């Protein structure tokens, strides 16, 4: 009978991928009605383990026991039949469908027109969704189209998708990664109320504070192995952190104070429109000085990326001026900007920062191939390309199987990012823009990138950092600009701002209004 206490059990689960043991003999038992946190660094094996429970992968060894019965979960729909649901980190929503259509997709209520022709009964569906959303306190607009709603509501749609399917075990994969602090609070409340409603929740996260706040128990994975299982109430976050990293991790040192130099970048009344001619950046003005890290904080989709793209020349600006080192670059081409000293680490390393089908050496030359010594009267000097690559690979510790000849596609995300950072730093530009430079990287790689950023600051470069991780902003910034709804609502030295204050501005409420979400 004791078995019944556990709603899901994983016994001796092992999953291998080519060259990696993602899960190594992991055994976990999850109680009905608890919030169970799964903690670990990027690459520790959390997502793989949950993907096995969700039917995306089959384990190489071990067994799954759901409600006391051994099962093989072959697909997500099979998982759904066992009332297991998952909210992925990247939402899986149909952008041009309504909230209701997204929720009912796959289980659409149908009726028959004239008792004959079947059709999807959206009226009933809308009613059901409204009712469901009321019951769990998950506020959504059933008839709103997804492309017109924000991240937070999208996430609620994902949760409702699971509830609509009658899920009892709810898996959340890094649910707070894209949310502002206040939205995170709101989500955590939802998790607690779901638990109240008898649901079992598995929370994948690497944010200790959140786990401490809501979770009952917590399992910690490191390099594919289960290294710890704690009752959260009895464990300090420091204990959890050291187990997670597998060693004592010294906190990152705050950047040393700097004398700022002259203003390198000046952005004045910048306006950017998206493809639908809708303003996404409104009258944004700021400056970045030499030796200063100016960080733009904000929830995803509030215009930060567009600001960076406009400065780099990737997005067309509608009005305003951009000045780089005293030169007006508003209408300059991308290459002219590069020549004037602008380096850019883009948000999406794979689709923008690299040509995945090119070899590493050509990717490292992407910013310089058109100049001497590589380009000699129109003909490329392959020797110069590969010599440069050898130097950078060594200097920046880029791990690539076949050196400069490695196809970038086959490299790991961390090494791809190192390659981009190496290339951009090597341009010697006076202004460096980093957009989400550590997204998806593990702690080691993240720290290496942070060190590079701080080194550049020490060299007197002006640095514009755009990050969705408030922790990263707090760790690096000299000055913070917060963007909300395309506007820069607050600019201040970091020392004048508190974590909560920035969070409030990220929600567009400043420090006066109340947080309503």
């Amino acid at each position, binding site marked *: 009978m004791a078995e019944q206490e556990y709603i899901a059990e994983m016994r001796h689960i092992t999953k291998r*991928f*080519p*060259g*990696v043991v*993602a899960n190594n003999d992991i055994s976990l038992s999850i109680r009905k009605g608890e919030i169970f946190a799964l903690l670990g660094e*990027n*690459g*520790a*094996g*959390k*997502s*793989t*383990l949950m993907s096995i429970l969700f039917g995306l992968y089959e384990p*190489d060894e071990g067994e799954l026991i759901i409600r006391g019965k051994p099962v093989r979960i072959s697909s997500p729909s099979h998982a759904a039949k066992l009332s297991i649901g998952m909210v992925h*980190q*990247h939402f899986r929503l149909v952008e041009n469908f309504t909230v209701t259509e997204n929720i009912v997709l796959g289980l659409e209520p149908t009726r028959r027109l004239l008792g004959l022709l079947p059709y999807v009964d959206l009226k009933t569906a809308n009613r059901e969704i409204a009712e469901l959303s009321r019951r769990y306190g998950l506020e959504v607009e059933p008839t709103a189209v997804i492309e017109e709603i924000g991240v937070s509501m999208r996430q609620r749609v994902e949760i409702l998708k699971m509830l609509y399917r009658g899920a009892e075990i709810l898996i959340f*994969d*890094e649910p707070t*990664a894209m949310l502002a602090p206040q939205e995170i609070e709101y989500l955590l409340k939802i998790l607690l109320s779901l638990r109240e409603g008898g649901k079992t929740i598995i929370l994948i996260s690497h944010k200790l504070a959140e786990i401490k706040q809501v979770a009952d128990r917590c399992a910690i994975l490191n390099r594919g192995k289960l290294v710890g299982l704690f009752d959260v109430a009895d464990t300090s976050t420091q204990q959890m952190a050291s187990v997670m990293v597998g060693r004592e991790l010294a906190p990152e040192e705050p950047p040393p104070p700097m004398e700022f130099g002259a203003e390198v970048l000046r952005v004045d009344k910048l306006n950017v429109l998206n493809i639908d001619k809708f303003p996404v950046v409104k009258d944004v003005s700021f400056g970045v000085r030499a030796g200063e890290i100016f960080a733009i904080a904000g929830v995803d989709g509030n215009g930060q990326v567009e600001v960076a793209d406009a400065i*780099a020349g*990737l997005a067309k600006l509608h009005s305003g001026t951009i000045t780089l080192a005293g030169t007006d670059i508003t209408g300059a*081409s*991308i*290459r002219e*900007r*590069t020549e004037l000293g602008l380096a*850019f680490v*883009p948000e999406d390393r*794979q*689709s*923008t*920062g*690299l*040509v*995945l*089908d*090119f070899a590493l050496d*050509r990717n490292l030359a*992407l*910013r310089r*191939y*058109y100049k001497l010594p590589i*380009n000699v009267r*129109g*003909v*490329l000097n*392959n020797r110069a390309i590969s010599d440069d690559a050898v130097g950078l690979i060594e200097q920046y510790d880029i791990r690539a*199987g076949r050196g400069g000849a490695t196809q970038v*596609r*086959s*490299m*790991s*995300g961390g090494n*791809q990012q190192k390659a981009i950072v190496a290339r951009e730093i090597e341009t010697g530009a006076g202004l460096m823009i980093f957009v989400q430079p550590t*997204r*998806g990287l593990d702690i080691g790689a993240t720290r290496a990138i942070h060190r590079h950023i701080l080194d550049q600051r020490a060299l007197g470069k002006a640095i514009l950092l755009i990050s969705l991780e408030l922790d990263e902003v707090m760790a690096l910034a000299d000055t913070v600009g917060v963007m909300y709804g395309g506007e820069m609502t607050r600019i201040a030295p970091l020392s004048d701002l508190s974590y909560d204050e920035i969070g409030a501005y990220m929600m567009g409420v400043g420090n006066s209004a109340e947080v309503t979400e």
Partner: protein
Amino acid sequence: MKKRPHIFTRLLGDSKLQPFVIPVFSVVCSLAAASIVLLIIGRNPLIAFRSILQGAGLLPRGSYSAGKGMLTDLLNTLSALTPMIFAALGVTVAFKAGLFNIGVSGQMLFAGYIASVTIGYSDLPAYAARPLVLLIGFACGALIGALIGLLKHRFNINEVVSSIMINYILQYVIGFFILTRHIDPVSRQSVAVSAAARLVPQSVHYGTLKGDLPLCILLAIIVAFILRFVINRTRYGFDLLAVGANPKAARYAGIRVGSTVVTSMTLSGALAGLAGVTHYLGYYNSIQPKSLTSVGFDSIAVSLLGNGNPVGVLFSSLLVTVIDKGSTYMSSMVKVEREIAAVITGLILLFSACGAYFKYLAERNQLAATGEPANSEKKDDGEGDA
């Protein structure tokens, strides 16, 4: 994942052998398929394939009429090969830039027609006429290519759709002019161009035999090597490849994607123009109104088969031209419609199009072998526990 790759997949999947194995595999598959068709209609495929080689001048026929021999057939094949190489190089350049030039036939027709009415119908001496024909062909093809490139760049029109439309427009408009102005009432073709302007001098004596003198075949081969150099070793080639592989990253690197699209399409068109003049004022000396030559479409197969390598294209051009040239003789020898040549080419195309699949299998196999986790597998996963 755990399944051991089939020997077959392993052979196809080896990334070093791939450039050779995949085309050979495609050709073998399509010949096998053609053999099945031939067997069904009761013909001996081996005899059919032998007669293709005989018809194309690669094997001796049983008998020849006076003044003809294997060399005659071979020279004729070479003069048909010339436009095929140019056309396929044109398609290849576009492919490299991520574009699909299916308008080669139209560009050929335009170049051939303009060169015919300007130089072909003049009485310029050969030493002036022939270079001018090449030049005009080059320029006319470039013009149409540039137009397609501009439509893509400025108006975001898929180049496949626009080039098909332009193909039809050119076909009818040029057909109209030929029918109303330059028609030869006997042949129902355009009036023949002057011998001086024709790029392939006819009935040249080779000992006892008479045959074509395919002047431009050398040029075609040289152009293939130049193109390989341009693509792999020059700054322009770097731009082109980057735009073809990832336009977003190319733009980020400061490459002007739009103008690269336009110039590469222009270059592609120019090569198609050379194909046009070597076809209509070389292999032939007149234009059939209201029709497009199949060379333009076959060249797509040739380019795919050549794996995007200009030098590989030389070999695949030869293969497809031989099948086409030999088909007439085969048709008379084994009593099967000569259109089977087009079917074989089409099948080669079909199997070549699956090349990406083999490459994909290869990538997966490589993974299994080296254990290097491919990053693309977790592209959107943020965390990516691989």
